[in-house]
């Protein structure tokens, strides 16, 4: 699973850095380093709805710093189970 987090300007302002850091530590905590590749990306085309996060070729989702845990559970853990 490839998870891309947008670090373009608009998302950067809304907290990409925090989102990346939180995801990084959650992935480590759950020992998922072999299954999930966390990457940064430039503009994903959804500047108004940052922070933009894209899993594989799915639709771009909005993940604010406060929602990272929920996103990790439903989309990353959930996605891996599916």
């Amino acid at each position, binding site marked *: 699973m490839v998870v891309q987090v947008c*670090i373009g300007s608009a998302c*950067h302002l809304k907290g990409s850095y925090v989102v990346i850091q939180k995801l990084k530590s959650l992935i480590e905590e759950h020992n998922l380093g072999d299954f999930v590749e966390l990457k940064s*990306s*430039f*503009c994903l085309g959804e500047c108004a709805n940052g922070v933009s996060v894209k899993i594989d070729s799915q639709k771009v989702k909005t993940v604010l710093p406060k929602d990272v845990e929920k996103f990790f559970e439903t989309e990353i853990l959930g996605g891996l189970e599916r």
Partner: protein
Amino acid sequence: MRKFENQVQLIKYEILKEVSRFTYEGKLNQMVNEIPYIVDPGPEPRYRCCLYHERAITADRVKMAMGGDKNNPNIIEVLDTACDQCPVNRYVITETCRGCLAHRCESACPVNAITITDHRAVIDYSKCIECGRCKNACPYNAIADVMRPCRRACPTGAIEINDNKKAVINNDKCIQCGACVYQCPFGAIQDKSQIVEVINLLKEAEKSNEIHPYAIIAPAFASQFEYANLGQIIRGIKLLGFKDVIEVALGADMISEHETLELVEHLKDHSFMTSSCCPAFVKYIENEYPEVTENISNSVSPMIATSKLIKSIDDKAVVVFIGPCVAKKAEKDLPKLSGITDYVLTFEELVAMIDSRGIKLETLEEASLNNASYFGRMFASTGGLSKSITEVVKKKKLDIDVVPVICDGIKECDKALKIAKMDRLKGNFIEGMACVGGCIKGPVTMHHGTKDVKKLENYCSSTIEKDSKESLRIFDVTNIDLNKK
């Protein structure tokens, strides 16, 4: 509304805009010969002796907009049709000569080139050595220095005059600083453009998901637009079809730390190091002070660093640098750097592209641009690089005393290099900027105003990242090679 600094800039813009428009419409090949008739409709000429001459010049400018002479490696060329054959002789006796009794000019001349004929001074040009003493001696200011503006502007003596009295660039001496491009009052010296290639790239990218065009924009852009704010400009560039717009100041942040650490190492067995971000300055050293080249920083420029950063994140990236600089057009093709930054455009070319698409910047909603730090953005002004390096030393508590010698313009660079060559430099880091004022005063900027520095400072102070460590924390830069060789 936009104001043009002068007619030369306006004409260049008009032609770039037409070339840009027809390229977007896919009609350039069929319309290329029509452009002179569109730009110079007649029936009266606007600036030159006749309409036919104007159209011939326009045709030459169109060629430059389409990449110029492919057999000439220099990115700057003289347009033969446009060069007005300014006087070759530097000093002339004007009407103001009163035919006085003292003849101070005559006695000041060290080579006896001045005689008085019919109560007027006359210069024998076969003897004149252009020392200018006669001009200084005349109490009536009757002797004028009419040195060609291109020759006066050129810091390396690269402009020669051929048998037809036309200016010719000696490619071996030219450092691509662009001073002649900016200074020629007839607009007869121009830089070659990649505008057609870039537009075709953007059109390709629209159709294919395999090409991701990125615009990287030099910090000098902060002082360029009077009629739109920075956010609107970013939006406008995105509307041209770029996937994203990234600040070159971010690459400057990467370089600050890298170059500082390099300086610490370099000073262990050298007495000084020079900066490497200004390509015209680097080439000046290579041409004029070959014995000093080992002291040139081995760090790549912020343009190259930013391009590498983008390509490390997106392997489909094609990078287009947009800046105030002619020399960058040559830098991107240097043997060790070619293929990293794919295209170089100027602010003039950017504006022509935006206008050719009918994009009204001032009406757009603002987009954001906020990745780099205050220090990275300050690279655009002379002294900014040194400030940044001093800051890194302070933050990292490095055991080194950096004493910068800040050189504003090639003349100051030359002085510092001369002293450094003799090992008398009062400092250990030469920051060299070919343009007086730094990049914000570059030759192909739209705007050379007195408020430019203030505008740059506002842009620098609006960052949310305090320093390069903060601006770069989000990127993985550990694997990016920032060495030239």
